[in-house]
């Protein structure tokens, strides 16, 4: 059946993309998969100008104006009017979003001082889509507030243009070739600690010169992501060796690296189109030196990050979605089943997640007005510590999100960088 369209190109309803299908059933009252992106401007944010800019940007990003609804067999997205109200920022970001209180929208915009932050429910988009939304919002805000004309880039969309069809496509379905690959892996080591008070996420951000990190990675003959991932694995290995449970000391330490699939397929979708790769060491074989970890990470990334491998990985997920038995199962049966699968398997195969959005380059007209960018990940179901990284204006911002009280990993991570000669400045949301 052809979907009814609104305004020509925007359908009245949409199927959830392949990656998003698991998130609505997996969320609970206290947890939902979320992430947050923010820009810090040179001047305090004017909420009225921001609201006007938001209205314009939402028209350009129509998929952000959909609400989540339950169908008989699957959740789906339904187009709605209006926009979510702007909110003052809080000291505990990424608290599970109550969609009903948020006007059914799956993202919320928060401001504090000079910062504009957007928090997204992962069923809506991934980091790349979210970044595009935030940068376009910031550019439009500067246009409304200061009358600046920011030229469009691949990440800043032209709000005077109509949305394009390929921006709302489910690229997983379009590009998956059908031959899947087993998703089974050995369960990974999980760090444990004293649970933090409910609904509080400890955030520690390390700010360092991007050049120093790039030079260090270059001197070691690896990419920045491989270098930082190796440091992170090394920190987890240190913690693992001190774990009192013998079984846990022998589990693999793996870091989940989200991979943007758009660059492999030239996709411009603003919905989810990313995969992941779990890379790490198997501690059952003994203790690894930093050089060994680095070598392993470098070669694993080289071997696994190929179009063929990633396509097989996404095809496995698409095949599950296309399976007739799965499709024919009513949602009230499928939903608890999917939730149970997510709880059992979700992030069981990795010790943490490290998402690197890379360097954000803004048009020259915009640069003097944007002083900083931040990227935060909400913690997944099982792992209490995750990290996210973004570079802007010569600085690299690595933010750790944590739901345990002990900052073991951040401390080990940042002190390791300092020992390597990379200066780090830290700030947090703790008081």
């Amino acid at each position, binding site marked *: 059946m052809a979907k009814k369209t609104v305004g020509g190109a925007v359908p009245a309803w949409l199927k959830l993309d392949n990656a998003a299908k698991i998130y609505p059933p997996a969320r609970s009252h206290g947890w939902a998969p979320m992430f947050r992106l923010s820009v810090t401007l040179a001047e305090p944010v004017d909420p009225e100008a921001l609201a006007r800019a938001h209205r314009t940007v939402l028209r350009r990003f129509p998929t952000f104006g959909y609400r989540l609804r339950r169908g008989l067999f699957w959740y789906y997205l339904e187009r709605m009017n209006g926009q979510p109200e702007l909110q*003052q*920022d809080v000291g505990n970001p990424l608290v599970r979003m109550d969609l009903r209180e948020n006007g059914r929208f799956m993202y919320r915009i928060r401001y504090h001082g000079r910062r504009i932050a957007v928090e997204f429910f992962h069923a809506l988009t991934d980091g790349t889509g979210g970044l595009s939304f935030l940068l376009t919002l910031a550019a439009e805000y500067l246009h409304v507030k200061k009358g600046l004309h920011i030229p469009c880039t691949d990440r800043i969309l032209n709000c005077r243009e109509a949305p394009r069809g390929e921006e709302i496509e489910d690229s997983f379905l379009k590009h998956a070739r059908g031959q899947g690959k087993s998703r089974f892996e050995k369960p990974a080591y999980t760090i444990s600690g004293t649970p933090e008070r409910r*609904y509080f996420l400890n955030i520690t951000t390390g700010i360092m010169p991007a050049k120093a990190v790039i030079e260090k990675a270059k001197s070691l003959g690896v990419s920045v992501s491989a270098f930082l991932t190796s440091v992170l694995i090394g920190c987890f290995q240190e913690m693992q060796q001190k774990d009192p449970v013998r079984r846990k000391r022998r589990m693999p330490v793996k870091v989940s690296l989200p991979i943007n699939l758009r660059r492999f397929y030239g996709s411009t979708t603003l919905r989810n189109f990313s995969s992941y790769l779990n890379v790490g060491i198997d501690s059952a074989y003994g203790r690894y030196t930093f050089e060994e970890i680095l070598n392993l990470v470098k070669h694993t990334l080289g071997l696994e990050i190929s179009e063929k491998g990633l396509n097989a990985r996404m095809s496995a997920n698409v095949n599950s979605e296309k399976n007739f038995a799965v499709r024919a199962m009513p949602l009230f049966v499928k939903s608890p089943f999917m939730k149970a699968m997510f709880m*059992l398997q979700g992030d069981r195969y990795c010790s943490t997640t490290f998402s690197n959005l890379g360097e954000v380059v803004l048009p020259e007209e915009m640069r003097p007005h944007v002083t900083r960018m931040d990227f935060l990940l909400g913690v997944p179901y099982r792992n209490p510590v995750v990290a996210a990284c973004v570079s802007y204006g010569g600085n690299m911002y690595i933010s750790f999100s944590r739901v345990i009280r002990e*900052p073991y990993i*951040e*401390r080990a991570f940042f002190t390791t960088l300092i020992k390597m000669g990379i200066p780090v*400045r*830290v700030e947090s*949301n703790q008081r």
Partner: protein
Amino acid sequence: MSYCVHCGVELAPSEESCPLCKTPVLDPNQPWSEPEERPYPERLEVVPTKIDHRYGAKLASLFLLIPMAAVLFSDLILDQHMTWSAYVLGACGCAFCWVILPFWLNVERPYLYIALNTLSSALYLALVAWMSGGFAWFPALALPLTMLAGCSAMISVYVCRRSRMPALDKVSIVFLIAAAVLAGLESLIDLWIDGEVRLVWSLYALLPLAALSAVFRIIERRPKLKENILKRLFL
């Protein structure tokens, strides 16, 4: 700018102590003062819980008062003094301790709950013994059995909450406790009825439990065997 003397990181002006090791900033040349703007505001988002357990417990307590009041008045009107209603009141008191109180206090205190539950059960049994006129069975049988159940529950909870103990060792000890409880149960009943202990029926449960306990301890100490079992039972 200040640096943490332990971690070596530079601390943002907003940090009164190092967020990585909690070492306070002590810079005699530049004492810490509240900055104009912190990276995150002080206000925290509060998510109201959909189910207020404490409110629910209070409501349940009020509902529990209705049958209690009804039976008490009926008894007083019919018999002019409290007779059979004492059983119902005692049972309601037990139900309050067992079911409602944990939600009311809203604090995780398992040992306190077990102690309260043991005490309320013992008191209720004492009430039954006193009301029925034959108090002898209470100190000889009911009280030791209640204490046995309470103590075994406490030890089991203590074992299960020890985070450093491997899971299978915990299961093994809980099985041993269950075996000991069964043996204790039969011994107390034997002592009450015959005046001497002759373990018979409890052995049928005690021996398999002890054997299973030993099996779990052995599996925990043989990683290869454990890995093999896990692999075959993996879902």
